[in-house]
């Protein structure tokens, strides 16, 4: 290795210093991460309003519904609590999907990974007894994480060993997980006493994620999973952009030919990336069970694993972007509820608007065309900085 390359400090030439001035690109990435989703959201609301008008909803009702949405998502401590509660599993599962994206894998299986992770966590939460919360809760979360990882790794192994496409295998694993859940929930050691429908026993108190705003109001559901989510964002950021493994993931995703050239073992990378993605989804499932639902029921994942795909796309597979996208989706969900209550606008409208946002984010050129001033390249050194 060239010794002079490592020299630094006073010996560094001005040419070299110039090369090391960072943030040339940061403005455009700032645009990608913030302005684009915001513009997309604005357009989605606009079209949402048009659709409502087309279905003869009165203009004041439309306005009222958007106000209700704002109010229901950020307008009160309750609203913020709901937004954050909804965002937690979306962000966690979204991080996994985003990481897999970065490694060139399209993980459709977050839903199934959440199901098995959540189910395993639920089982661990009532079958294991006599532990303190300090042992029991981490155990439950780790069980969810591990089972999610193993489940996703199956798809990774299939791809690495046989070339089976992960989209197909994760979809199939989703189906299997849903039936498995139904089946397991009817097993006597899992099923709630006295019930004939599939529903698990309740999570023991020692395995519950504490609600962190309970001291204010018993209805505030926000739980300690918030901190796990934030930690996961930081860890995945570190993994992707600071660690050797993450660099290998990113090369594999950007250019498989280059990964091969660099001596990165494709099979191992695929399995590792899927396992980490599954671990995050499994953790999301475990957190839903332990922090929100208190038990496993059929459909307890509520399609979060699929919404998380949209979150990962919207967040451009960047951990910070995914955090923001997850918060946005959480806000839409909480706000959508209020929209229905206050304005009587169907909850389906929220689904339509979420889909529209994704379409606009997936078609950045379209948004750029519609809002050219926001994306116009200014000469470098302009008034804005990254």
């Amino acid at each position, binding site marked *: 290795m*060239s010794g002079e390359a490592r*020299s630094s400090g006073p010996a560094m030439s001005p040419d070299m210093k110039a*090369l090391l001035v960072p943030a040339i690109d940061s403005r455009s990435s700032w645009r990608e991460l913030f302005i684009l989703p915001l513009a997309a959201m604005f357009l989605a609301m606009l079209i949402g309003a048009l659709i409502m008008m087309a279905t003869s909803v009165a203009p004041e009702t439309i306005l009222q519904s958007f106000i209700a949405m704002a109010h229901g998502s950020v307008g009160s401590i309750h609203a913020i609590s709901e937004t954050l509660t909804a965002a937690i599993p979306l962000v966690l599962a979204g991080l996994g999907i985003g990481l897999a994206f970065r490694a060139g894998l399209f993980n459709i299986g977050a839903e199934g990974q959440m199901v098995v992770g959540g189910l395993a966590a639920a089982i661990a939460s009532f079958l294991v007894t006599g532990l303190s919360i300090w042992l029991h809760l981490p155990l439950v979360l780790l069980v969810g994480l591990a089972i999610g990882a193993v489940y996703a790794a199956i798809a990774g192994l299939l791809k690495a060993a046989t070339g089976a496409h992960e989209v197909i295998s994760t979809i199939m694993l989703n189906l299997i997980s849903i039936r498995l859940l139904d089946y397991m929930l009817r097993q006597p050691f899992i099923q709630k006493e006295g019930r004939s429908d599939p529903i698990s026993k309740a999570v023991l108190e020692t395995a519950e994620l504490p609600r962190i705003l309970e001291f204010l109001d018993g209805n505030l559901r926000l739980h300690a999973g918030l901190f796990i989510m934030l930690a996961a964002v930081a860890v995945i950021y570190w993994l992707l952009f600071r660690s050797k493994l993450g660099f290998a993931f990113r090369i594999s995703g950007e250019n498989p030919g280059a990964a091969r*050239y*660099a001596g990165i073992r494709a099979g191992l990378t695929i399995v590792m990336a899927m396992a980490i993605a599954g671990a995050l989804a499994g953790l999301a499932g475990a957190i839903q069970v332990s922090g929100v639902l208190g038990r496993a029921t059929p459909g307890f994942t509520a399609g979060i694993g699929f919404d998380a795909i949209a979150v990962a796309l919207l967040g451009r597979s960047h951990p910070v972007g995914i955090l923001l996208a997850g918060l946005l989706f959480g806000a839409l969900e909480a706000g959508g509820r209020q929209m229905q209550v206050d304005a009587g606008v169907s909850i389906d409208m929220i689904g339509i608007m979420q889909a529209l946002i994704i379409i606009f984010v997936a078609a950045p050129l379209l948004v750029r065309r519609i809002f050219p001033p926001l994306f116009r390249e200014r000469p470098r050194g302009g008034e804005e900085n990254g």
Partner: protein
Amino acid sequence: MDIELRGISKRFGPVQANQDINLEIRAGEVLGLLGENGAGKSTLMNILSGLYSADTGEILIDGSPAIFTGPGDSIANGIGMVHQHFMLVPVFSVVENVILGVEPTSGVDYLDLEAARAQVQEINTRYGMEVPTDALIEDLPVGIQQRVEILKVLFRSADVLILDEPTAVLTPQEVEEFFTIVRALRDAGKGIVFITHKLHEILEIADRVSVLRQGQIVGQGDPASFSEADLAEMMVGRPVSFSVGRAESTSGDTVLELAGVSLFDAAQDARLVDINLSVHGGEVVGIAGVQGNGQTELVEAITGLSAVTTGEIGFAGQDITRASVRQRHRMGVAHIPEDRHKSGMVGNFTVAENMVLNSYYDESVTSGVQIDWRRVHARAAAACLSYDVRTPSVFLGAGSLSGGNQQKMVVARELERDVRLIVASQPTRGVDVGSIEYIHRQLIACRDRGNAVLIISSELDEILDLSDRIYVMFEGRIAATFDNRGGGADRNAIGLAMAGVSQGTNPGAGRSGNRGSAA
């Protein structure tokens, strides 16, 4: 038909791709258009073929202004483009490919193949192209496929043909045949634009030459009035020395030795057959051959990307037949891959990230499981300076560098560390003349430091310029070997060997116990 481009300018954001270009294309004349990558040749031709519209300026056809709003307009005006990358359907016959998109029909939708075949055959014979019109494309050699592309534009009644780097894929013999066709077209009154960066081709075929640099015409005239050096200087903007002026090699110990190496692909087809070759410290060995004759597989076998089926590979006295890519990398094997976009770099990564693409795991840039980006950045900056990679910052996306700078970045990454063997595959493909010169110098400098250099190139000139010894590959075998110390190898003999014509090995090449001979 004469075409005149008058005052054409085109700007992409901050980049002035074409500036006030005046160009005349005359019937019955070959216009050589010379320029480095990024000089604006493609933009200009895309304007002429209707893909882009010029910001200012006009196109006159036989004196009257023409406005192109899309490729259809230029075709309708008799302008046809033959792209560097063929656009043919492999499982269709020649005739079917030629008529694709302009099928002559009779009745409602009845494909009149007979009429088409007669028409294609007529063009075929008129220009002496000798294309078997009923053969399937996939059965034809590359040189013939190219003629099918020309048939396509002639079938569409083109009077002006734009040929974009047409010789890049041809053997020297094929080039000669190709020139014959070009001359026949010219003599039949077609106007031809011949785009290339190979100076000797311009001198051979062009009636007039225009040189493009940084979007502007910097010189035009009769090729006979220019020397290669003049043209190169116009193209690059400074005097270029053509031959790298390599000193006599001081050959040392054997660094790389392949003994009886064969490689079969997944379908059990032989890709490499009984390859025996050696590369010594302090020498450059060139592998010549038309693309697709096993060169890719040879490089993969040497660098560890593919496992050989039989045979042994020795490196500096050790058997590395089963060693992994990383083990070989650590032992001092550098690899400049044949296609930087496909495997040599990641366009969306920064220059710095690309600089550690295949060494990010090395202790020198890591602390534990973490990559120490400060060290990576410092090292990348130093490498950019010492290898003339022109980038404003190591944080810039590598994809936004010019082709030459991208390749220099790859070269910098591979040569910057301690290496014993450099495997350079197509090291100057898609690279401007200035960078070619630079990269060649670096490779020779590497040799002069006592390292072994193996160059694989489909550009015979490059092989002849740099190599001390030359192996020619044909259909997965070493077809012939040549000694080129002092530039003594016979260009014509190499060309024949590349085409698979059986030939004896010239004396002196077997110096290192090489058994490679006629295929």
